[in-house]
Structure formats: C-alpha cells, structure tokens
C-alpha cells in the first residue's frame, strides 16, 4: 500500500487515540461534560475555518482530522493550565470562549448540533480531491459522444 493511501489511516488512528486519551483524562477528573463542550466548540471552529480554506483554495484540507484535533486542543488549553493549578479567568475566553461556551442554551446538545452543522458546511464546501487536482478528469462530452453514436450498419 502506498504512503499516500496510508496517510488517512494513520491520521485517523492517531487522532482517535489522542481523543480517547483526552476523554479518559477528563473522565478521571469527572469532567466529561467539559470534554464534549470543548471538543464540539473547538472542532466547530476548525471545521468552519477548513470550509473557508477549502473554498478559497478549491481543494479539501489535507489533514482534516488533525485540524479538528488542533481545534479541540486549542479550545481546552485553559484546562491544561488548570491542571497546573491556574484557575480560569475571563481572558481565557480567547480559547474558543472557553468559559462562556459552557453556558450556551441547550448546553452540549446545542454544541453537538453546531458541530454537525459545521461538519456539513465543510463537507459541502470542499471540492473532491480529484476535481481539485485535475487528475483523472476526462471531458464528459467524449463519453456522451461515444455512447450516443449511431452504430454503423
């Protein structure tokens, strides 16, 4: 199997493994509510930015799962400081509204819906990889001409 084919597999395994570790860490601290808030908030921000980038450059983001993981880590950064005995302060809302994101009406259900909306936006916006690179394209008119040509008697 080529490296280019293995890339998405490695990316998926890596991101899922990191997310499981993060979830377990939050679970031990009785903080799964916070885990999901920051996953959905940070992931939504990443997906919206990915949609903008994909629309601008006419190709999908190369490592989308890593981008979502980066958004999650950015959103939960104050929790890492919290483990180092630094309490949250209001300026930490620069991390994807780290404090106020918890108080969104509907709480994590609303964040889940927003995350799905952001994911849909990206999946709709990003052009397919083949179309973006031009590889493997062929003029559709040729196909139609061949199929529709009258058979020689």
């Amino acid at each position: 199997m080529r490296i280019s084919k293995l890339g998405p597999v490695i990316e998926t395994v890596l991101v899922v493994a990191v997310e499981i570790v993060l979830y377990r860490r939050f679970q031990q601290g009785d903080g799964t509510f916070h885990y999901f808030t920051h996953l959905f908030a940070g992931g939504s921000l990443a997906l919206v930015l990915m949609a903008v980038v994909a629309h601008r450059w006419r190709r999908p983001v190369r490592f989308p799962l890593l981008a979502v993981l980066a958004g999650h880590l950015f959103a939960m950064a104050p929790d890492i400081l919290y483990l180092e005995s630094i309490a949250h302060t209001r300026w930490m809302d620069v991390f994807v509204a780290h404090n106020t994101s918890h108080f969104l009406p509907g709480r994590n259900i609303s964040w889940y819906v927003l995350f799905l909306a952001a994911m849909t936006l990206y999946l709709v916006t990003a052009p397919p990889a083949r179309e973006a690179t031009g590889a493997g394209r062929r003029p559709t008119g040729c196909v139609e001409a061949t199929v529709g040509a009258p058979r020689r008697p």
Partner: protein
Amino acid sequence: MPGSVDTDRHGRHRTPVGADPSLPTNPGAGRGSAARSPVPRWVLVRVAVGAIVAAVLGAALIVSMSDPDPLDDPDLAMQRAGILDVVGPRSPAVALSAAVPARGRVTVVFFLRPTQAGQLAGALESPAGQELSELVDLGLVVSSGAGEVTPRDPGTTVVEDPDGRLAAAYRMRLPRDGGSPVGYAVVDAAGTVRYRTLDPEVATGLDEVLTIVDAVRG
C-alpha cells in the same frame, strides 16, 4: 449486436420484436449510464463519513449523560466552573461562628453530608489538606451528625445545617437528588463569597480547592 438493430433478408433495418418503434435506439443505454450511480462516489463517501461521525459522537454524548451522579448539579455548566464570580452573584458570607469567616482571611466553607464529612476530615490530613489548613480558615457545614465529625485541626469550625438554611444563605445550588448540597464555597478576605460549586468528589479533589483559593488570594 443481436436484438438492438436488426435487418431483414433484404438488408433493410427493422425494429426488434417487442421494442417501441417510436423510441430512438441507443445501443449504449442500459449498459454504461444505467449501471453507474447517478450520485458521484465522493458524495456517497462524504455522506457516509458524516453519518458515522454524527452517530459515534452522538452515542458517546448520550452515554456520558446517561448515568448522572445524584449529587451532581442538574446543570453541569454550574459545577466546578473553575472561574470566580460566575456561578451565582457575589454575596456577603454568613457567619458560621463568631470567628469564621474572619475579615482579612480567606475561608473555605465545605457543605457535606455525613458520608462525605468523614471522608473530608480524613482528606484534610493529607499534604493538600494540611496546606489548605495553613492557608485559609476552614468551615464544615454538615447536614446532620456534626458531632461525629472531628477534624484534627481544632481551628476548623463544624456546624450542623439540618434544614439547609446555611446552604441557602451561601446560595449553594441543590444537587440532582434535591437533598443537601455537597461542595464548597470560597470567601475572600473581605467576607464576600467569590466561588461556589457542588462537588461530590471534593474529598479527593483538594488540589482543585487549592487552585481556587490561590485565585481568590490573588
């Protein structure tokens, strides 16, 4: 190809048996275009990926919410927020005794049920508990059985709050089971409640209490 366009014995074209002569013949139709899905493969892949992600995350979210602790806050956003002055308004602290809370000293007031009170009394003897005892004044508000709670530090004030008046005066939130709260409030040196939260695992989480105390001490 047999069956598509045929000729009679004079070489003239004739329509195959059973075919509608009004329709144009198209030998390619029904082979290439009909076998190929009208929806591009990449669209199907994206729909599948989106559905899988939605299902996995939705299931994980539901599972995480399916077994709540009866001592948890019904609104988990209000529990262990980790930031001062967010949950409930600033309010003057009610006296537990003549000396607690004292002006000029930060005070931590624990609200406990008998089970958690015993655990906390033990936890206050740990390094984190001893550090806490040195930094702040401590008050233990127990819903019942206060006489059985004997912290090692004689400076720790223990009071009983059977009707929940003290908890209400500190504006502690009620847990999911509607009983007495288990958690703590932190009072600053000016006698104002700056932080309040339910925390069923407070006896094993004194490091977090120290973090909040550090924030209140500035």
